[in-house]
């Protein structure tokens, strides 16, 4: 099968940017990715774009150049960017073009807004009754997990503190100040045992990658990063996931576990081969659970791994080196592409103050979201 390489990455900072539109941010992210690849927009054969808030991402072509290329919109909730990555890689394999762009952009409104549960096939009473709240699912899942596997609330705070520390090293992060563990524990309880400071926030931003056929990557770069696996899974019967009013008595594992296993198999890579990791930390409890669901430790080992600093930038299992969602927020369409940006910088040795030592060779990224959709992408030099 045709192999695929990433030859350029671009990231518009994540945060709040006043009147700047999602399209303006998206165009800047693409500009950066094209410059990184040493090409211009007319060199691009096709593109996939994803967003939660805008109706279509292809108006971007009006900012980048109306070159008439195929530009496809993808939408897959929190796996939107991961889907754009997979589709771009697959389109190169299928011969749609030699050079493709995946771009994600979003600008979420501040504070609360109206939701309609029928748009995700849930009854109206589910929202009227106060149950259409994704964060309470995460509270319920980590509460049980802590009970079953001996994880303390302090560990949840330590994971968040680590991500804020990493964000402070990242000039493009939303939250750029370390937050003491005690302050995280003392912040208002949103969904027990998760406090406000343990959650990520919706915000704004954009990210893009340029991919090409691996056999021509040397034309553009001396440091190609190869897409070794890209897998997306939805929930199986028996999984208790976001936005559901019931679950089967017979439990099945989360879709992340299935996506992860399939990705390792596709890549021919084992968890022990991975040097730098990006996990969906919608909240710090999710990072803890995802460590095990992605094969990086057994259930319960996180308590000691976090205490020992294993997941710090200088540790044996560096996780969310750019601050993850907790420090960057989640502009949904761009979030999974931010992960790619970070992994590519790390694998090239270009991550600056937050560079993982020891010349990392393999990077791993996972996203998870409603209503039980997970994606895993594995990259290597």
């Amino acid at each position, binding site marked *: 099968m045709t192999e695929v390489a990433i030859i350029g990455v671009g990231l518009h900072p994540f945060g709040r940017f006043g009147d700047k539109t999602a399209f303006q941010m998206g165009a800047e992210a693409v500009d950066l990715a094209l410059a990184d690849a040493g090409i211009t927009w007319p060199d691009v054969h096709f593109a996939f774009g994803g967003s939660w808030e805008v109706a279509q991402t292809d108006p971007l072509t009006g900012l980048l150049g109306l070159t008439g290329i195929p530009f496809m919109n993808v939408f897959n909730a929190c796996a939107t960017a991961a889907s754009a990555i997979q589709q771009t890689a697959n389109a190169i394999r299928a011969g749609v073009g030699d050079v493709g762009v995946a771009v994600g952009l979003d600008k979420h409104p501040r504070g*609360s*807004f*109206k*939701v*309609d549960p029928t748009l995700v096939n849930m*009854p*109206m*009473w589910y*929202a*009227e*009754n*106060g*149950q*259409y*709240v994704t964060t*309470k699912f995460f*509270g*319920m*899942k980590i*509460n*049980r997990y802590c*009970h079953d596997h001996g994880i303390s609330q302090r560990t949840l705070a330590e994971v968040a503190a680590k991500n804020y520390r990493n964000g402070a090293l990242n000039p493009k992060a939303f939250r750029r100040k370390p937050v003491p563990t005690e302050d995280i524990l003392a912040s*208002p*309880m*949103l*969904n*027990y*045992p*998760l406090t406000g400071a343990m959650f990520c926030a919706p915000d704004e931003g954009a990210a893009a990658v340029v991919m090409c056929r691996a056999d021509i990557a040397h034309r553009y770069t001396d440091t190609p990063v190869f897409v070794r696996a890209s897998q997306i899974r939805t929930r199986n*019967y028996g999984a*208790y996931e976001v936005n*559901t*009013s*019931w*679950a*089967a*008595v017979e439990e099945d594992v989360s879709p992340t576990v299935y996506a992860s296993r399939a990705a390792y198999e596709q890549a021919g890579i084992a968890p022990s081969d991975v040097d730098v990791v990006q996990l969906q930390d919608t909240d710090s409890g999710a990072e803890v659970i995802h460590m095990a669901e992605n094969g990086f430790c057994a259930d319960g080992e996180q308590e000691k791994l976090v205490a020992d600093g294993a997941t710090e930038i200088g540790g044996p299992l560096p996780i969310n080196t750019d601050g993850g969602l907790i420090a960057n927020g989640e502009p949904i369409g761009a979030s999974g592409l931010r992960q790619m940006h970070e992994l590519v910088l790390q694998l090239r040795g270009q991550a600056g103050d937050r560079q993982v030592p020891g010349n990392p060779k393999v990077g791993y990224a996972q996203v998870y979201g409603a209503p039980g959709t997970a994606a895993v992408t594995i990259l290597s030099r």
Partner: protein
Amino acid sequence: MQKAIADVFTWPSEAPQLIGSRCDDCGATTFPAEERCPRCGTATMTELLLPRRGTLVSFTTQGFPPIVPYAGDATGERFEPFGVGLVQLDDVVRVEARLTESDPAKLDFGMEVELQVVPFYTDEAGDEILTFAFAPVTDGAPSN
């Protein structure tokens, strides 16, 4: 007058039950009632009244007011956190629901709970809207 938030539990009733459905082919059980089986994909579901008692698989608290169309009238400053749980009803199905208890220190994994119909809010017409919630069982009787 009193009205149910939706037609998902038997009411009025001395012993209210949630209204679910069960697949005639494979036995998969859902709440609320569905037309198509989530395991088989076939339209073979029959309505089933669910057991009133169960055990707490997990729980959390809702510490901030859910966004619109949340119907509770105690929002903003007057909002009171409430408990939410995943309750296993015998070996039939697990149901996600509000809990009458909102203090995590008073909730526990495996705790026995029972379905109650409780006042939720008063609508614009002045009707009292009722919802369902699970209450901890102590000494064989619901605690509140």
